């Protein structure tokens, strides 16, 4: 690792203050990774700016010196998007943590990029409003990171993903200029929709510093239900039946047997360990509609042979169930030292087939796998439980992943539903989107950031 240039360090300290430039190994090693297992990189300098202007100055300095910048929020990403590259400056934006305004009249909220996702919903809740995207890490993930990764969550089926809520962005461009895109208007067709280019750009095109988000009236009622099954296919079929009955619940999540066991070991909330699949269902909206939909969903689950069907007693239990589901990924880490999480997504009607395929592949390669995910969106999280130090087993994991990706693409699916490409999935991007689309993406990146200074090596080489 090269030693940082003293002149660069001096200037950085001038811009953000000496206490916000970290260089000692004890300070920087903890920034060598994000939430992605088994990925880490070398860290030289970590900079913690406090304002958009400071970010702009840091980017100008980096551009002048030809230094790469890897931006991060709380570092909970799941595709290695904020893992440092050689010689880069890590730009950590957690200090920009102010909610700037909640606008009741226009149903918007304006926030700095480092605000915690859950804090946004908590702030608008006081106004009777609702910010629906709820990624698994929402208690600590930052909104800037959510926008950069276009994060999903448990409510995608009914409410969509982060992109569906972004109305405007403030972005620092690769040369340090500050640009604003979008506004509080519901309708706006003035020119290219530039904000949409930045949403999900994974820190490769600009640094998102401020967001203007759409919020909704808070649903008056909510009901959470849990159904257990002896066969995964029955759970998947229940989901198809619910959608065919013209019901759009906000959440349809599933856990397989392995995942149920791990989640129960952690949360201890009495999940049944002896079933093959658990389906967590939630409907929200007008109380009358919620009551009717909940009844229908329970009946459909029973008709598909659910062994046990129950309704959460109260809000506290509903919250407990949803939190338990959010812990699934990390809870699986109890079993083996390394946890390789995938994010493949297929059209909803192919989900049962895909789940069965994952189980088959794991068996064939003699691997442990836990699968859970968003059944209503077709978004699966097959999670291989392995050991990164066992090279022979890791080779089998990679073979299995290869087969899963091939199958996903054959079914018309995507390699990543909500985690992003980052480092973890860039090998497969071209195969999914095709040569022309892949080339266009790279041309945009080259035109925009010709020296490849913003998050180099992510999405594509």
């Amino acid at each position: 690792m090269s030693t940082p240039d003293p002149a660069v360090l001096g200037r950085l300290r001038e811009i953000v203050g000496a206490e916000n430039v970290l260089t000692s190994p004890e300070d920087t090693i903890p920034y060598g990774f994000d939430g992605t297992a088994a990925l880490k990189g070398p860290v030289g300098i970590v900079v913690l700016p406090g304002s958009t202007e400071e970010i702009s100055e840091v980017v100008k300095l980096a551009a002048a010196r030809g230094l790469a910048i890897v931006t991060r929020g709380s570092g909970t990403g799941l595709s290695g998007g904020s893992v440092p590259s050689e010689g880069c400056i890590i730009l950590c934006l957690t200090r920009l943590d102010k909610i700037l305004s909640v606008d009741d009249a226009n149903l918007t909220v304006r926030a700095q990029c480092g605000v915690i996702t859950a804090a946004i919903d908590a702030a608008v809740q006081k106004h009777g409003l609702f910010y629906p995207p709820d990624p698994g890490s929402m208690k600590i993930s930052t909104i800037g990171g959510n926008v950069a990764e276009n994060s999903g969550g448990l409510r995608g089926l009914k409410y969509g993903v982060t992109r569906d809520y972004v109305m405007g962005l403030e972005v620092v461009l690769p040369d340090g200029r500050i640009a604003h895109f979008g506004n509080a208007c519901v309708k706006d067709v003035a020119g290219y929709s530039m904000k949409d280019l930045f949403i999900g750009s994974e820190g490769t095109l600009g640094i998102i510093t401020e967001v203007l988000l759409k919020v909704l009236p808070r649903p008056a009622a909510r009901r959470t239900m849990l159904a257990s099954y002896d066969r995964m296919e029955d759970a998947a079929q229940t989901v198809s039946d619910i959608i065919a009955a013209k019901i759009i619940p906000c959440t349809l999540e599933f856990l397989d047997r392995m995942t149920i066991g791990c989640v129960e070991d952690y949360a201890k909330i009495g999940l049944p360990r002896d079933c093959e699949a658990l389906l967590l269902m939630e409907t929200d909206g007008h109380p009358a509609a919620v009551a009717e939909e909940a009844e229908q969903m329970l009946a459909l689950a029973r008709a598909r042979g659910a062994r046990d069907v129950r309704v959460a007693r109260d809000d506290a239990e509903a919250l407990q169930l949803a939190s338990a589901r959010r812990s699934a990924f990390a809870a699986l880490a109890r079993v083996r030292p390394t946890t390789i999480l995938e994010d493949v997504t297929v059209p909803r009607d192919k989900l049962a087939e895909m789940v069965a395929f994952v189980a088959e592949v794991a068996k064939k390669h003699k691997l442990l796998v836990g699968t859970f995910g968003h059944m209503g969106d077709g978004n699966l999280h097959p999670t291989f439980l392995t050991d990164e130090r066992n090279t022979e087993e890791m080779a089998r994991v990679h073979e299995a992943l290869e087969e899963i990706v091939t199958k996903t693409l054959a079914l018309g699916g995507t390699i990543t539903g909500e985690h992003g490409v980052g480092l973890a999935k860039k090998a497969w991007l071209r195969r999914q989107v095709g040569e022309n689309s892949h080339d266009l993406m790279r041309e945009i990146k080259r035109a925009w950031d010709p020296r490849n200074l913003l998050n180099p090596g992510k999405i594509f080489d």
Partner: protein
Amino acid sequence: MKPSLKLLDYSILQQCMHCGMCLPACPTYVATKKERHSPRGRISLMRAVADDELKLSPAFADEMSYCLGCLACETACPAGVDYSNLLETARAEVQSAGLNQTFTSRFWRTVTMRGLFMRPRLLRFAGRLLWLYQRLGLQTAFRKMGLTKLLPPDLRRLEPQCPTIATKFSPQLIRPVESPAKKSHRVALLTGCVQDLVFAELNRDTADVLLANGCEVHTPSVQPCCGSLHAHNGEAAAAKTLAKRMIDLFPPSQFDAIISNSGGCGNHLRHYGALLADDPVYAPLAKLWDTKLRDIHEWLLEYGCLAPRTGLGDLTVTYHDSCHLTHGQKVTQQPRDLLKLIPGLKLVELPEANWCCGSAGIYNITQPVQSEQLLVRKVGHVIGTGASVLATANPGCHLQIARGLRQAGSAITLVPPVTLLARAYRKEKSAESRTV
């Protein structure tokens, strides 16, 4: 063999997949927003040491000492990382490398860890001297004359927290064996060190509550320190010696339960099995010991606790979770349930009830700034509840929050849940004796 991160089972380090779920639960991360001050950040440093990517350094030692050891991260961690094991190993390694020691810190370590807390009789003698100093009015005189200004700044700040030593210690309050009218269980009562000097009455209350619930209570008059202070501060060998002495004094096969009424001690006490795993003689005994060790609140509810028929009048109480009781021992609901048994007592939930108060063993001496911030945060929440009593079940939290409340000019009193329960039983008894 000296404890070291390199010799530690590597899978314990690998268990952390750095998902970040611990960050919002960690008081030092939330206060600073720097990864180094987070559980996963500290684990990454430990792993770097184990991997030879980082040398043991004063900065590493500082970081291990900056951690409160509150274990809120263990409650938050879905992956079940054994953080306390990692932290104790790292601290022990820092300790044996002799890093980051000043003459004064070495002096106090020797006096406390190797002196007082290894010798229960000496500790009681020191306690008696302190009692005398307080009783003879010397403390008041010193304070009035401003002589406390001569103390080093950290001790000067904490001097008002210096607890009033109890007039009677546990052996003067509790006979070695006390039997209930109708005996259902045979239990041992651990009286603790600070607990015994300062809160001996709580030990009496604990014995009373156990007796009221059909337990024969065994309380030997001289008991060793449990060793938690040593284990948490890198003195592994001393911790093992003390654990063995404890097991010798209380052979686990002879009791239905071994009762601890201090959150911090209890969490260490129930892990003797791991501590003595390599000891050919004590390993099986320690394993059995772990299965017998109970926190008092947990034990009382295991067989259903007798509800007092008389209350303590209208009383609004809030409850603060001691870190090692809730995060370490996972005893969270039981103290609340016990409080709810008392007629007329209204329990209001304390916001951030399980957030560390900053006492954290000797943290308030070693890390005064962070400790004080946490105390102010805690006291603000306590006052906000409108309760007149704060119940908590750990002597460290008790002393720390009491000082904070005094500084804030609050009249809220601190009473352990067991004491409230004992008072209710006593009131019931005296009401009965009046009616007879």
